[in-house]
């Protein structure tokens, strides 16, 4: 649905995005990277606010810049906290629904639906200028959804939301992805991204560092050994035993928890052998976990 072919975007002498090639299909894709990485430039290129300086960007097979055909099927929830402050939430969503091509009864019903969907029915009649940050995020999301777009761009949609709101938006994004929409969500809150999708695009300093399934990407990073932490009744003996396995490059005891943390270059092989080790004894393994199997670890490895 979204295609970048060697796309770069320069702001004068500063590069915003550098030679990005990627393909984004239906479902939820997370765009992650530190501040200033190029996430917003990426979103602006997809939403047709900017043209690439070199290369091409296509959405639904067409260049999105000032393209009405694309905009009919694209919704954007921008990062900026900007509104027509004098309008009420209802007026704001209705105004943008009208510009989105909705009219009459269909417009009224869609506006009501999305306002209810984002949980703003009680406050839709109030001026946006008086909204809390969370309400502003919700109404911004409502305007992005009002014309039922196939491609949805959400730039840091969790900012300013309380925990309940975050949970609701997370569930909403997941449901949109499951409904076959192409949702691109940018965020630096990695923990919450992980709850929405495993498909990521990792950008840093304008470059696309990695794309694909989070766990597959983690598996490909063999330059960095994979850490696995195990809790046992006999941690020292377990550590010595694990060091005998192929691929294990180090082991150490956690000073506080007493857990054994090993580093292996062959995590799959390690997990295959683990049941044998447990069965052979003489130690119990109470739990094991990999701190490197999360998004934060991938992010850290790739950006450091």
């Amino acid at each position, binding site marked *: 649905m979204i295609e970048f072919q060697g796309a770069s975007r320069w702001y004068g002498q500063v590069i*915003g995005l550098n030679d990005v090639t990627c393909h984004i299909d239906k479902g939820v894709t997370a765009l992650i990277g530190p501040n200033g990485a190029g996430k917003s*430039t990426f979103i602006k290129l997809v939403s047709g*606010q900017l043209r690439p300086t070199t290369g091409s960007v296509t959405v639904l097979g067409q260049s999105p810049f000032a393209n009405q*055909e694309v*905009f009919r099927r694209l919704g*954007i929830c921008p990062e*900026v906290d900007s509104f*027509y402050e004098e309008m009420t939430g209802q007026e704001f969503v209705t105004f*943008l629904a009208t*510009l989105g091509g909705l009219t009459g009864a269909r417009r009224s019903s869609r506006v009501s639906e999305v306002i209810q969907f984002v949980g703003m029915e009680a406050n839709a009649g109030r001026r946006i200028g008086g909204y809390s940050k969370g309400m502003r995020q919700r109404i911004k999301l409502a305007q992005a959804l009002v014309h039922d777009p196939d491609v949805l761009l959400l730039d840091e949609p969790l900012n300013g939301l309380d925990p309940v709101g975050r949970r609701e938006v997370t569930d909403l994004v997941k449901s949109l992805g499951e409904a076959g929409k192409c949702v691109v969500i940018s965020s630096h809150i990695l923990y919450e991204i992980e709850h929405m999708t495993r498909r990521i695009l990792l950008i840093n300093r304008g470059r696309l560092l990695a794309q694909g399934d989070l766990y597959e990407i983690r598996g490909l990073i063999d330059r960095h050994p994979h850490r696995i932490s195990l809790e046992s009744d006999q941690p020292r003996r377990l550590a010595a035993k694990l060091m005998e396995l192929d691929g294990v490059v180090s082991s150490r005891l956690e000073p506080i928890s007493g857990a054994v943390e090993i580093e292996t270059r062959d995590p799959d092989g390690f997990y295959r052998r683990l049941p044998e080790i447990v069965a052979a004894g003489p130690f119990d393994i109470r739990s094991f976990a990999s701190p490197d199997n999360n998004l934060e670890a991938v992010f850290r490895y790739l950006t450091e």
Partner: protein
Amino acid sequence: MLFKGALRDLLRPRRLLMAAPLVALPALLGLFWRSMARRGGTFEPEIAYNVLQGGFVFGFILVLLSVIVATGVVSQEMEQRTMVYLLTRPIARYRILLARFTGAWLGTCILVSAATLLLACSVFGPTEAFQAIVWTDIKVVVLGALAYGSLFLLCATLVNKPLIYGLFFAFGWESWVPLFPTNLKKVCIVSYLRVLAPHPQPSQGDEGVMELLSALNPVVITPTGARNALLIVTVVCLVAAAVTFSRRAYVPREDSE
């Protein structure tokens, strides 16, 4: 919707409160002039009207409001960062621009016409205010707001800080260039407005620098020529603004990573 929004935005109570002193100022000056004349000397309403309408309404209020309102069509959306909502909707960019401009232009006309009518009421009196010259002036205000507005709109689509350039043009170029010898007068909108709405200023006796410069520059512009010139400026600027707006990227600078 965009037209109504722009007009409603301009005529919001808070905006009107800010514009009210400017709109009322010529009338207040007219009343002041009148009250001063009562204390000694004669009050000639035509002279007061010509001085205040020609110098203040056409020379200041019309230009100032046109600059602020027309550049605001683009720059206000940029500054409040709401442009993204407009430019990502399935509506042609030129339609967004022209609809918002029409609202802004109509708002300018309402405010400047109000200033003209208030001034006429203050100098001629409420019963005598609706004279032919006042109606002519209102027609010229409409045309002037259109020409100035389209020029400043074009400026807003081209540069990042249009208000500064607009003010420089309004109070630098428009004030001084018509006085220079040669045909430079013809590249000033104010020259055409003065032809369509002449407001002869009273002679001060001794010739000042301005009068001398004007006398050195006797370029003749006919009313038809003036009207056509203003329409040409309007059409050219609006087309150029629409084309520019359709092709350029409008992203607030601080949003650019």
